[in-house]
Every structure is written in C-alpha cells, then in structure tokens.
C-alpha cells in the first residue's frame, strides 16, 4: 500500500474545508469567472465579492493602479445586491462543491443587519464574512471597523440575525489590531479574516492628479504581506483559540505556510488571482510540495507552529 497523501483538510469556525486555501473577496468575482482555470471544489472556500442590500454601481474610473509589488483599488464595492446574488450567482456557487462564504457590508447598521439576515436565510451560503472597512458616511468617512466599541456593537447586531458562522474581516488601518479582534469576538463573532486592504494613494506626477479617481484606495499584493503576517501573529498570540483566515499578498505555497505558522487556520488568495487566474491551484500544489519536502503529513501541524517568536 502507498503512503497516505498529505492531509489538507481543516475546520474553520464550524466549516469543514477540503483545504486551508480560500480565495479572497473582490478578487475572485462570484467564482464563475474562474471556473475555466481551476477546479473550484479543490478550494477550501470562496469569499464572494462584497454584497450589499441593494445593487451598487461603484466608483468612477480609474479604479485601479499598479504599485511596487502591489496594486491600489477603489472599485467602490460594486455588486449585484443581495437579491441579484441569490438569483444570478448563488446557483452556480452552490453547484460548485466548495464552501461559499459571502462577504457583505452596508452603509448603515441597518444595511448590515438587513444583508446579514437575508444571507442567513439562503440555502447554499455556508458562512458570512463581514467587511467593516467601509467608510461610514455619517462619521465623515472614518471606517466602521476602526473603533472597537462601534465594531462590537455592529457585530452583536449582525450576530443576532444569523446562526451561520460569522467571520469579521478586520481593517489594518488601525493602531491596535488586537483591540479590534477582541471587540469582534466579544460581539459574538466565530472567526476573523485578517487583513483587508491598506488605505493608500498614488499620484501621476506629470498630470498632477491622483491615479485613482477617488484619490484613496486599498493597497493589496505582495507589498503588504509583511504587515498582514504581523497582524495575524499579533491576533493569534493574544487570542490563540480564535480561528483566523490570513490574507495579504499570498502568492506561493510557502506564503501559505508562513500564515499558518503565524496562527491562521485558513488563508485567502487575493490579488494574485488577477496576475494568474489559476493562482490558487498553483499555490495548492506548492503547499503540498512544501509539506512533502518538510515531511508534514497534516497541514494542521503548521497552524500556530512558529517557534522562537516574541
């Protein structure tokens, strides 16, 4: 008999996933766009484009620009809305055989709650990922997710309307990521996604104009990996029992191992899927190779396995 293959399955906040590798919200469309390039059922999960109660058209152009080892985006959370999602996007995802994690947001608390409740009622939605990096119009553009008290309250209200695993996606634009993590857990979250994009800006010096129509956008890609890894580790060290989905610049199988060692249970491949639509598949293969090289039979051995950290 041959040796058993490497075991990749993990359990994240009650979700059984065939692999720790998910794809990140906003970088994998609604899944279908990528079906020609990889087998979606090999993914541990798919986080959808962020969904709001009503469809949104998003921001003016230009919306993206490249930076050193990264990119800035200000898509403006363009999406089909919660009803459009149920009708047009969910059936495909349901049939795809992967865990469907629906990223959602709102402009107001009520929006969040309405969206959370609608998604809770949908068969085929396995978990909810709350995006709290949205500028709060009433508070002068400050993100909902940067104030622990506001965040805890928001989480609590959404918790009340869903029994599905509720994952809070933390913003890195903060002094103290651990305080935001604690607030989320105290509000009743089941897990955390760490991190969303970092607020950033680029200028076209010759035209003397911002390269992004909205001036500010979110930085993603390998450039931010060291910051993301630091935040995952800080949260894990402070709250070792909380499931974390690590995100930020993941581009190789070794990157995945680094996030798992820092304390993540799953990871999400983001911007790299733009560079190569089959990125998650390649990364999956590299992770398996890494485990073989390092004689690791179960990927869970890696989780939180960093040695000598301070």
């Amino acid at each position, binding site marked *: 008999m041959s040796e058993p293959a490497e075991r990749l399955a993990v359990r994240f906040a009650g979700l059984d996933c065939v692999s720790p590798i998910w794809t990140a919200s906003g970088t994998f469309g609604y899944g279908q766009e*990528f079906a020609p390039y990889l087998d979606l059922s090999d993914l541990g999960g798919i986080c959808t484009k962020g969904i709001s109660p009503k*469809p949104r*058209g*998003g921001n003016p152009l230009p*919306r993206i620009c490249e930076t050193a080892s990264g990119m800035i985006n200000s898509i403006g959370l363009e999406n089909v809305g919660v009803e459009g999602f149920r009708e047009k996007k969910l059936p495909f995802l349901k049939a795809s055989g992967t865990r469907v994690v629906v990223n959602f947001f709102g402009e107001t608390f009520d929006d969040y709650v309405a969206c959370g409740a609608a998604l809770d009622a949908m068969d085929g939605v396995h978990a909810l990922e709350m995006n709290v990096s949205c500028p709060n119009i009433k508070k002068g553009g400050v993100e909902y997710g940067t104030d622990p008290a506001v965040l805890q309250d928001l989480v609590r209200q959404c918790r009340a309307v869903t029994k599905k695993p509720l994952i809070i996606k933390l913003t890195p634009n903060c002094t103290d990521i651990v305080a935001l993590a604690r607030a989320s857990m105290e509000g009743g979250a089941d897990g955390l996604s760490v991190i969303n994009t970092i607020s950033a800006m680029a200028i076209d010096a010759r035209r003397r104009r911002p390269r992004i129509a909205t001036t500010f956008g979110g930085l993603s890609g390998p450039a931010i990996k060291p910051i993301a890894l630091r935040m995952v580790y800080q949260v894990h060290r402070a709250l070792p029992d909380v499931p974390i989905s690590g995100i930020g610049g993941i581009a190789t199988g070794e990157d995945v191992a680094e996030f798992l060692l820092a304390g993540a249970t799953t990871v999400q491949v983001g911007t790299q*899927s733009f*560079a*190569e*639509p089959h990125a998650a598949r390649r990364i999956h293969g590299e992770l398996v190779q890494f485990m073989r090289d390092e004689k690791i039979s179960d990927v869970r051995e890696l989780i939180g396995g960093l040695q000598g950290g301070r």
Partner: protein
Amino acid sequence: MVRGEWGRDPLLPRAFSILRTVDGGCELLVKAIGRGTRLFELAQPGAPLSVLGPLGKPFAAPEPGRTDLLVAGGVGLAPLLWHAEVAAKTSCATPMHLFYGARTHEDLVLLDDIARTGVMQHLATEDGSRGLHGRVTIALEQHLATKSDRAGTTILTCGPNAMMRAVVDIARKYEVPCLVSVEGEMACGIGACLGCALPLTDGSRPFAYACVDGPVFDAARVVIP
C-alpha cells in the same frame, strides 16, 4: 493578458491586442512605454511569457457591402491591421481605408504589411514628417466630407482614448456607425477585478467591462473614459 517571468514587480499582466496568429502562437505589436513593456524589450529571444487569451470581443468581422474606415493611433494599429489582413485573406472584396496617425514618421510601423493588405492608406504625423501634417482625425474628416454616399460606411477605431473621442465626434457628425476599442487599466482580463468598468451612455448600471464585453464597443453605447 501577457506577463513575463517577472516575479512580484511588476505584479499584473499587461493587455495586448493580437496582431496576427502564426502557427500555434501569435504576434504582438508592443510599444515600450513603461516598466512592463520595457521588460519585454529587454527579454531574451525565447524567454518564456505567460499569455492568457484570446479574451473579450474583437471588431466585427468584415462583411460584403460594408465600407470600413479603420482609424489607428500608434500601436492601436494592431487590431485594425488584423482586421485588414482577415479581409484580404477572405478576399472579402470591400473597399477599406486605413487612417493611421502617429507623432512622427518613426512611430508609423508595419507599413509594408499594411500595403500588402491592399487597403487605401491615409497617413498623418503630428510633426509633418510623413503623410498629412496634423492629426489623423483631420484626414478622416476630409475623407468623409468628400463622400456623398456614406451608406454602409463604418468606422473602426483604436488608439489613445483622446483620439477616439475625436473620432466618435466625427462619426456622430457624419452619422456613420463607429466601433471603438477602448484603452484603460486592466488587472485581470476576465471580469473579476471590475477595474475596467465603463459607464454606459444611457446612464444605466452596472457598467460594461472592457475585458469581457469589449474592448470593442459600439461607440453609441459606452462613454470613453
């Protein structure tokens, strides 16, 4: 979308039009304007490239009875030369005009290939070093103005967005249908990043996406960014 063995910077692939297909591969016309395209220039012959494509929707194939006016600016020539070569190969005997403009004569490339297709050429350079002295849109307008019967005439244009906006204005003035191949930043090429969204002229949303719904659009439908 094309990417070299670049590692992590530049991160994203670059969008190119297919100039022509050659047994199993394809030729691209590339102008080195920035970091990515300059790396193509530096690459060794035989250096591996990763290519994703063909993607999106090309210009409507030539048809009998249609007179195509091709208006190219700079490397915008690529999809229009493809169009002209297809027409020549299928011996689709329609008259075809190519209006081809650039800053200076050195930027006018592939003139032999153009000649071989049999299209009627109208060259223009901004510095007057070759063809008409001035913008290619002047040449286009002169041509349209002298034509009394414009039935069946269609403009196909690819070039800098500013040039194409001028072309669209001319098309509107002479009531000629116009297809544009829009330029713009693209990250993914497959409709996932939503970076290439174009507002629709009727104000409706969600937008059209240049990478999957375009890059060729009926000029009446989209707002060129």
